[in-house]
C-alpha cells in the first residue's frame, strides 16, 4: 500500500484484503458455489473485502455477466445487502482454456475492471477446475503476459486446489508446469485443513504455552493417534474417488499436514518461512517405508454395507461410478515412525476412513503411565494414562485426561477429562477454512499454504504405499459401514499392546 490511511488506525479489521480482482477458473463448478462464494459472502459481511473488489468468473459454460451474477445470488440462502451489492459487480468470461481468445477476453475485462473500480492491477487467480487443466491455464496466462505483476507494486497470485499430482512424479511435473509461468512465491496451494482454526491452534497450544512443549516428546509421550473420520460415503463422486482412494484423497495432504504440525520443532517465527521450513524438516524425518514393509505397517480397507447415523447405506462397490470389483481403499490405517531426537521410538498411528460411525478428527497424545502407582489396584480401575486430545472437528477444542480422586472416604482414583471448547471461550465466530484461506491469498500470507517442497516430502512418504497397493495381491480388508474400520487395523495396535481410542 502506498499511503498510510489515518482513518484505518485502530480499526479492528486489520486483516482486510487490499483492492484486487479474484479470477475464478471453473466458476460454473461445485467448488465455486459450495465453498468459494459462501466464503466470499462471509468475508464481505465481516468487512474483510475492500470496496475496490471484483470477481471475474471464467468457465466454458456460456453465460452473460448477469447470468453469472444471478447464479451466484441464487446459490446463497439469504444474501446480505453487502453480498448483493458485491455480486452486482461480478463479471464473467466464457471460453475454452485451449483457446487464446479466452485469455485475451479475460485480459480486456481485467483492464476494464482495474480502470473502473480502482483495483490497481492486483489479481488473484483461483483454479477451481479439474487438475488436468492447471498447467494449460497457467501457460495461457503467461502467454498473454498476465502471470506477472506490473512493476508498480501490484501483485499477481495463483491459488491451486489439491490434488497436486497423483504421485511424486506427476506432482513434480505439475510443479514444473506451474513454475514455467509463475514464481513459487506467487503460488498458493490450498489444503483446506490448514484453514481450520483448530489445526492452527496446534501451533498456539504448542508454542504459546510453557507447559506443553516440555512434555511434547518421547520422554513423556507413549504414542500419538491421529484420526480423520468421515461418516459420509463417496456420494456422487464415486468415479472421481475410484481414481483417488483415501491415501491420495486424505492421507497425502490433510493427515500429513496435521502430522507435520504435531511433529515440528518450534519455529523461530510464526510466519510463512518459519513454519513451512519446520514442517518440511518434520516430514523429512518421517521414516519412509520400503514397499516390502508396507504390508506390515499399513492396513487398507473398504466399506461394506452397514448402518451409519441411523440409516442403511450401500457398500462402496455398490456406489454409483464404482467398479463392482473395486480395490480402492476407503479406509487406511498405518503406523509411522519418526527418526529424530524428539520422536524416535514413539509410534504415530494414523487412521482415516469413510463411512465410519461419525465425522470426527483429532490428534491424541497418550502419555506414559506413571513409573509407579502408589494406590491399590482396585482403587485405580478407572484410571488411564494422561492424554491430551486436540479435537479438530466437529467440536473444536482440547481435552486433557487426568486422574482425580473420587470423593469419599476411600482413595479411589479415576480418569476425568477437562474440556475446553473454542466456541464457548471466544465470542468471535470461527471463520470457515475457505474464508480464512481466501483472505490469506488476497492479503498475501502464504503461511497456511503448501510449499512445493512440502508437497514433495508428502509424496515421498506416500509413494511406496501407492506402489504396494498397486500390487493386486495386496489385501483389501473389508469393514462394515458404521464401524471404526477393519479388524486388521485393531491388530496393528494390538501387537504393540495398545488400542485405538474410541472418539
Amino acid at each position, binding site marked *: 500500500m502506498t499511503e498510510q*490511511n489515518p482513518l484505518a488506525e485502530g480499526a479492528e479489521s486489520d486483516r482486510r484484503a487490499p483492492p484486487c480482482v479474484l479470477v475464478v477458473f471453473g466458476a460454473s463448478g461445485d467448488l465455486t458455489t459450495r465453498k468459494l462464494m459462501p466464503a466470499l459472502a462471509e468475508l464481505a459481511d465481516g468487512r474483510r473485502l475492500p470496496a475496490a473488489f471484483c470477481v471475474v468468473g471464467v468457465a466454458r459454460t456460456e453465460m452473460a455477466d448477469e447470468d453469472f451474477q444471478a447464479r451466484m445470488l441464487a446459490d446463497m440462502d439469504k444474501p446480505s445487502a*453487502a453480498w448483493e451489492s458485491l455480486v452486482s459487480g461480478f463479471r464473467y468470461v466464457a471460453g475454452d482454456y485451449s483457446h487464446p481468445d479466452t485469455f485475451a477476453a479475460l485480459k480486456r475485462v481485467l483492464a476494464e475492471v482495474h480502470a473502473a473500480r480502482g483495483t490497481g492491477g492486483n489479481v488473484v487467480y483461483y483454479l477451481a477446475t479439474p487438475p488436468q487443466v492447471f498447467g494449460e491455464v497457467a501457460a495461457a496466462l503467461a502467454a498473454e503476459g498476465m502471470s506477472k505483476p506490473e512493476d508498480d507494486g501490484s501483485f499477481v497470485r495463483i491459488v491451486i486446489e489439491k490434488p497436486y499430482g497423483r504421485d511424486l512424479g506427476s506432482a513434480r511435473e505439475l510443479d514444473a508446469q506451474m513454475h514455467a509461468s509463475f514464481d513459487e512465491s506467487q503460488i498458493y496451494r490450498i489444503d483446506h485443513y490448514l484453514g481450520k482454526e483448530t489445526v492452527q491452534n496446534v501451533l498456539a497450544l504448542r508454542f504459546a504455552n510453557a507447559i506443553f512443549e516440555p512434555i511434547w516428546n518421547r520422554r513423556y509421550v507413549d504414542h500419538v493417534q491421529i484420526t480423520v473420520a468421515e461418516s459420509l460415503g463417496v456420494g456422487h463422486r464415486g468415479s472421481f474417488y475410484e481414481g483417488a482412494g483415501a491415501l491420495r484423497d486424505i492421507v497425502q495432504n490433510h493427515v500429513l499436514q496435521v502430522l507435520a504440525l504435531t511433529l515440528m520443532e518450534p519455529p523461530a517465527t510464526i510466519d510463512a518461512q518459519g513454519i513451512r521450513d519446520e514442517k518440511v524438516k518434520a516430514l523429512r524425518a518421517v521414516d519412509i517405508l520400503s514397499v516390502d514393509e508396507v504390508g506390515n505397517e499399513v492396513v487398507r480397507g473398504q466399506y461394506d454395507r452397514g448402518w451409519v447415523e441411523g440409516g442403511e447405506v450401500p457398500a462402496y462397490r455398490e456406489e454409483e461410478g464404482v467398479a463392482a470389483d473395486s480395490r480402492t481403499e476407503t479406509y487406511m490405517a498405518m503406523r509411522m515412525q519418526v527418526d529424530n531426537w524428539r520422536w524416535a521410538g514413539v509410534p504415530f498411528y494414523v487412521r482415516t476412513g469413510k463411512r465410519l460411525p461419525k465425522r470426527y478428527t483429532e490428534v491424541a497424545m497418550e502419555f506414559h503411565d506413571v513409573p509407579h502407582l502408589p494406590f491399590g489396584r482396585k482403587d485405580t480401575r478407572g484410571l488411564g494414562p494422561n492424554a491430551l486430545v486436540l479435537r479438530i472437528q466437529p467440536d473444536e477444542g482440547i481435552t486433557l485426561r487426568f486422574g482425580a480422586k473420587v470423593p469419599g472416604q476411600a482413595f479411589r482414583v479415576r480418569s476425568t477429562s477437562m474440556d475446553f471448547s473454542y466456541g464457548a471461550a471466544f465470542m468471535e465466530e470461527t471463520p470457515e477454512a475457505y474464508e480464512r484461506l481466501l483472505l490469506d491469498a488476497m492479503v498475501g500470507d502464504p503461511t497456511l499454504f503448501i510449499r512445493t517442497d512440502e508437497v514433495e516430502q508428502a509424496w515421498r512418504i506416500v509413494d511406496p504405499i501407492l506402489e504396494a497397493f498397486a500390487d493386486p495381491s495386496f489385501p483389501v480388508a473389508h469393514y462394515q459401514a458404521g464401524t471404526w474400520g477393519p479388524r486388521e487395523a485393531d491388530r496393528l495396535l494390538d501387537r504393540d499392546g495398545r488400542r485405538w481410542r474410541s472418539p
Partner: protein
Amino acid sequence: MAEPVTELGSWRGEQVKVGQVLDALADLRRRSPMGATRTSVVNLVVVARTGDAADRAAAAIAGLGGRHPGRTLMLVPAGSGSGSNGDSGDKVDASVSLLGSEVEGHDVWSEQVTLSVGRAMAHHTDSLIEPFTLPDLPVVVWFVSDLPLADDPVLRSADVVLVDSKVLGDVGAFPRIAELSRRHIVVDLSWGRLRPWRELAAGLFDGRAFAPFVTRVRHVDVTGKEGPRHLLAGWLASRLELPRSAFSLSPARHVSLALAAEGASFEVAREDGKRSVRASASVDGGPSHTDVLTLPDASLPWSLADALTRLERDRVWEQALRGALVFAPAGGP
C-alpha cells in the same frame, strides 16, 4: 447470536454475609447437572444506581447467551430491588443464579450475583467485589446509569471501565468521560456502535487509486444525533488533522458522512428505509466504487458483547472524544 439461557439454580438471602453468598454459589455449582469444568473469561461488575438501570443491564447480560461466560456481580442500591432496605453493617441482600446455555454444542455456564448495597457500605464497595472475582480474569466494571466520581471505590477494582456515552448524556458527559479515561481504560459502547461508519469511511480510501485523497479532504459534513455526530466529527478531525472550520455538523435521525476532497468525493450514508449503510467513493473522471454493509443488531446485548471483546485502551477513541469537545457548543450541548 444469543443462545437461550436457562436458569440451572438459584438462591436468595436477605441480610446475609458475603461468606454465605459464596457458599451458596459453590453449592449451586456442585449440584449443577452440567459438566465438571467451566470456561470463564470475565468478571463483570455492574453498577446500577436505579432499579430501571439494573433491569436493563440484567436483560443485556441475559442476552449475551453463552458468550463471555464468567461471573457477573450486580451492585444495586439497597431498597431499589425487592427485600429489605435495611442498612445493617456487613450484611447484604443477595441473590445468586447459575445460568446455563449451549454454544456450538457445548454447555457453558455463567454465575450471576446481585447484591444490594446499603449506605454504610457505599464507601467500601471494593471490599464487596474482591471476594467475588474469579482469579486471573479481568474485572470489567460497567457503570450503567451514571458516571463514577473520581474517588468511587469501585474503580479500585476495575481493570476496564465500560460506559455508554449515549446513556450518560452524550456531549454533556464527554468532558467527564475524557477525564475518567485519563486514569482508567474506558470502553464506550456508543463508540462501538459507530464502528460500521468508521470502517466504511476508512475503507473508502483503500488502494492506490483512492488513498492519495485522504490527505486532500477539504470539507466534511456530518449528520446524526448529537452524540454520534460529535464523536464522528471528533474522530475525523483528529485523524485527518482538520480544523473545526472544515466541518459542518447538523442534526439528523441517521448518521451520514460526506467528505469533499480535491478531485474526489466520498460518502457514507444509511440506505433509505434499510438497515444498511452505503459508502461510495468517486474520483473525478476516474474509478469509483461502492460498498454496502448491513448494520449489526443495535441492541444493548450486542453492544455489550462487542465491548467485552475489546477490553483495551483505544487511543483513537480517546482522541475522537477530545476532538468532539471542540465541536460541542460552549457551556454544554
